[in-house]
């Protein structure tokens, strides 16, 4: 067979320059994949030290100041250098042009520039880490971050500032691409929900990230020039910083979850062999989450000195933002009903996502309730809540997506039994790590402390044990996915029998994605039809 000699995007040319100077969105996706995986394990390293310290009630592994640096660097690395870029920059970059029948994104050179900007920002932050790190928490609250901390705040905020522009440009690229480059017949309501999810995410990228940039810049200026904007001793208000910071950082959490929800829609449809129930509702819910998500930031500030009136407004709006998320969960569940369900690894991650995201989301409602929040704010209850969404939700969705599209990206199948085992290990390890933290928080254990009262030890030990299991669950895919690049079975065009334009071209795809521009005559997830009835590739070639 000529399969080995067919030209595709991976073998069209070789050499470092062909990768570092590529403008092919698929290669750029790989550049990001390697980078974010690196940062994931850096962040995981800090998490490991945290969980080791918390095995015992005494602060006996590291000093308090060092512990402050550990949780700060864990947060900064995971949030800005893994969670925010991961799905959009890896799977979004790879798939969006393909899903809409285009040859590339609207601005391929800008796409490459986004990656370089990401790397430069990452290097600044790694430099700050190597030089001793930061101890302010990833939230950089003033005036500690702007005046009193003796750690490398300026260097770190420069790194995050720079990386933010990577996000902004990616979001810009996605919005223009989705608006202007859809294939003939591919109307908005025929788009895969993955695309809708990334469109909504891109709105947040574009409108939220700049506020983080200017806020961190002001903190940097304050540190360097001694300005005093956030210094209470000089008339400044630290709560202003918190407003500006959370205006971005709350929508940022929707940046982290929306793409994962997009993946789950694709996977649930494929592994139920059914159209997504209530497609339009899910599409609008994505937009709703993005927009309402901009209105709730004050729920991070209920006890910081914000007015009661503001607290009430933000609490009410935070209840509202749960509605579109709930709509999605209902619709995914309804899709499963009477579907032809199979339990391949991507589906295991998706099913796990639904359960775990529901818990995370519901506990978000607890936290949105003013009275309850006063009790559990800054405790492990909050830590558990956001890890349920970010690790249970975002990371599990990400892993499900990587597995699902791996054959398309590499032309290889991963080992299915091992993958299902890893998914189960992740699910079990995850819940053992984070569920005890809800209890700990409710019982009063504060976050960001390296020592705790002895009565909390049992739950902490459970959590750390869970973390070690979770670590195994993460290392396994790293190993077998790399293994599969060489030894995995060769994948065909569409090993899952899925619906979607990306499955109508070779695995791995040619550089220009499609030999001819397709025409689409049906909406997404038309599993009751054959692909030939949906996607029409005519005779005219486009180069």
């Amino acid at each position: 067979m000529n399969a080995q000699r067919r030209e595709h995007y991976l073998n069209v040319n070789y050499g470092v320059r062909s990768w570092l100077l590529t403008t092919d969105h698929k290669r750029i996706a790989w550049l990001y994949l390697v980078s974010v995986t690196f940062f994931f394990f850096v962040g995981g390293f800090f998490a490991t030290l945290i969980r080791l310290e918390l095995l015992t009630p005494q602060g006996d592994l590291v000093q308090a100041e060092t512990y402050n640096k550990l949780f700060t660097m864990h947060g900064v690395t995971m949030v800005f250098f893994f969670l925010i870029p991961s799905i959009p920059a890896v799977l979004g970059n790879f798939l969006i042009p393909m899903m809409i029948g285009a040859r590339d994104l609207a601005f391929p050179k800008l796409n490459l520039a986004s990656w370089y900007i990401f790397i430069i920002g990452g290097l600044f932050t790694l430099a700050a880490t190597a030089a001793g790190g930061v101890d302010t928490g990833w939230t950089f609250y003033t005036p500690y971050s702007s005046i009193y901390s003796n750690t490398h705040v300026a260097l770190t905020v420069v790194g995050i500032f720079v990386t933010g522009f990577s996000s902004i440009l990616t979001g810009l690229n996605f919005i223009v691409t989705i608006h202007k480059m859809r294939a003939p017949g591919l109307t908005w309501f025929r788009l895969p929900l993955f695309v809708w999810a990334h469109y909504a995410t891109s709105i947040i990228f574009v409108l939220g990230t700049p506020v983080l940039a200017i806020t961190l810049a002001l903190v940097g200026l304050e540190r360097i020039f001694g300005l005093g904007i956030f210094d209470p001793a000089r008339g400044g208000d630290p709560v202003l910083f918190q407003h500006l910071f959370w205006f971005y950082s709350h929508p940022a959490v929707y940046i982290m979850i929306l793409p994962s929800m997009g993946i789950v829609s694709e996977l649930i449809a494929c592994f139920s062999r059914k159209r997504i129930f209530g497609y339009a509702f899910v599409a609008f819910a994505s937009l709703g989450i993005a927009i309402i998500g901009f209105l709730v930031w004050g729920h991070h500030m209920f006890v910081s000195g914000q007015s009661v009136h503001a607290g009430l407004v933000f609490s009410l709006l935070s209840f509202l933002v749960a509605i579109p998320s709930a709509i999605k969960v209902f619709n995914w569940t309804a899709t499963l009903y009477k579907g032809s369900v199979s339990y391949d690894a991507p589906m295991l991650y998706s099913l796990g996502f639904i359960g775990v995201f529901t818990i995370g989301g519901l506990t978000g409602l607890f936290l949105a309730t003013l009275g309850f929040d006063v009790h559990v704010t800054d405790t492990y209850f909050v830590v558990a809540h956001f890890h349920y969404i970010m690790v249970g939700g975002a990371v599990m969705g990400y892993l499900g997506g990587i597995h699902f599209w791996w054959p398309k990206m590499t032309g290889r199948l991963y080992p299915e039994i091992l993958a299902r085992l890893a998914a189960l290990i992740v699910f079990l390890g995850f819940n053992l790590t984070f569920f005890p933290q809800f209890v700990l928080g409710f019982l009063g254990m504060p976050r960001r402390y390296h020592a705790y009262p002895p009565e909390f030890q049992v739950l902490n030990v459970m959590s750390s044990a869970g973390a070690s299991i979770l670590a195994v669950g993460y290392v396994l895919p790293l190993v077998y996915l790399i293994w599969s690049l060489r030894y995995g079975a060769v994948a065909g065009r569409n090993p899952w029998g899925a619906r979607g334009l990306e499955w109508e071209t070779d695995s791995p795809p040619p550089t220009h994605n499609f030999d001819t521009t397709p025409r689409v005559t049906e909406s997404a997830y038309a599993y009751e039809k054959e692909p030939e009835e949906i996607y029409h590739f005519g005779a005219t070639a486009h180069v």
Partner: protein
Amino acid sequence: MKNGAHISVRAYAAVFAALLALTALTTGVAFVDLGGGLNNVAALAIAVVKAVLVILYFMHVRTSDRFTWIVVGAGFFWLLILVGGVMDDLLTRNWPGR
């Protein structure tokens, strides 16, 4: 039709003159006490009118498609959300509450 289609030099000149006049107006009005915080309103209102003129004419939005209008509107609307939320907090800090 191409976005940002032709706007005449006469229109540009008229906008230019209006912008200069509005600048003179806002500077002059600043020295007159309009009473009751109206000075702030006047300054902002004049600035908004100037900005709108620049956007519609110099930046060709007048002859652009609806998507352009939405992007322009979204940017300013989102800024209003930020300012609104922050000011709501500040201005209600002393409200009677629990």
